[in-house]
């Protein structure tokens, strides 16, 4: 399967719930996320390994990763 055909995960961020603590950004092992102002944003979706650490350690119910 070529790189282009690789299925990307769907990272759902709720900006109304995100408080900008940056825990998800710091713990992401492949640097997928970044802070934009006081809310998290996706920087490099293709690098996501679906490890779910951002979801597991988000205290605010603000981020989830779906297949």
């Amino acid at each position: 399967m070529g790189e282009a055909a690789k299925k990307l995960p769907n990272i759902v961020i709720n900006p109304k719930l995100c408080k900008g603590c940056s825990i998800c950004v710091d713990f992401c092992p492949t640097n997928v996320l970044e802070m934009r102002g006081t809310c998290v944003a996706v920087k490099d979706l293709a690098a996501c390994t679906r490890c779910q650490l951002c979801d597991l350690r988000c205290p605010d119910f603000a981020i989830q990763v779906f297949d």
Partner: protein
Amino acid sequence: MSTPVSAEKKEKISVPFDYNKYLRPNKLPHIWCPGCGHGIVLKAMLRAIDKAGLEKDNIALVSGIGCSSRTPGYVDFNTLHTLHGRALPFATGIKMARPDMKVIVVTGDGDALAIGGNHFIHACRRNIDLTVLVFTNAVYGMTGGQYSPTSPLGAIATTSRYGNVEPPFDTCEIAKAAGATFVARGTAYHTLELEKTIHEALAHKGTSVVDILDACPTYFGRMNKYKSATHMMETMEKDGTVSVKQVDKLPADKVQGKMLRGVLHKIERPEYCEQYASLVQEKAQGK
């Protein structure tokens, strides 16, 4: 940096999880500060409850006063937000009236061990079937960052500007000494392990106490020179604890001064409600 979860483990993990099933979504966002560990613990608790297959209407979540005690406001169970330190007496009452119900107590370290210290030891002594989750952030966050019974020696707080001189309590040792039949410790950093520990605590018959270390970046973190919530989680929770399964394999210098994590004590002892019910039945039959 954390390593990614392997494919084998990934199949077992319970995320993505539909938290809205158990939440009152109109109550969010919660009041906890950015980076507060309580939200992480709440999520682990919800996943553990789901794993245990408990009915929403069959759970009573009881809390006292404090940051951690705001938890029942956000979840769609039978919830009770009670007096400071008195969550355990209320929970005991619920359990006595409805022994079929699963009663969970969420409480902070100050709430459980200082203001409600006597209730805590007596609930453990009775071995009544309650699951007690103690959110240990080592500070009274809601009232402005006073030091608590679990603040480490030398910690700066608003009431210990030159460092705390009182030695801290070890929640697990107290619970064990007082007679709790299931005693465990988890951290917000090791969130999957915490989920497993809470699941095990829910399955246990008798008083189960889980001491959960989480970070208060706003008060404890700022006053004790932690850079961020992540820094607190890495230094206090990851580097400050060692798993009870690994402790024998590690050299002594890597274990020294660290807290043990995992199930620390598990025994079987007659449960209070059952003993009480059998006594009532015995007397009703005129024996």
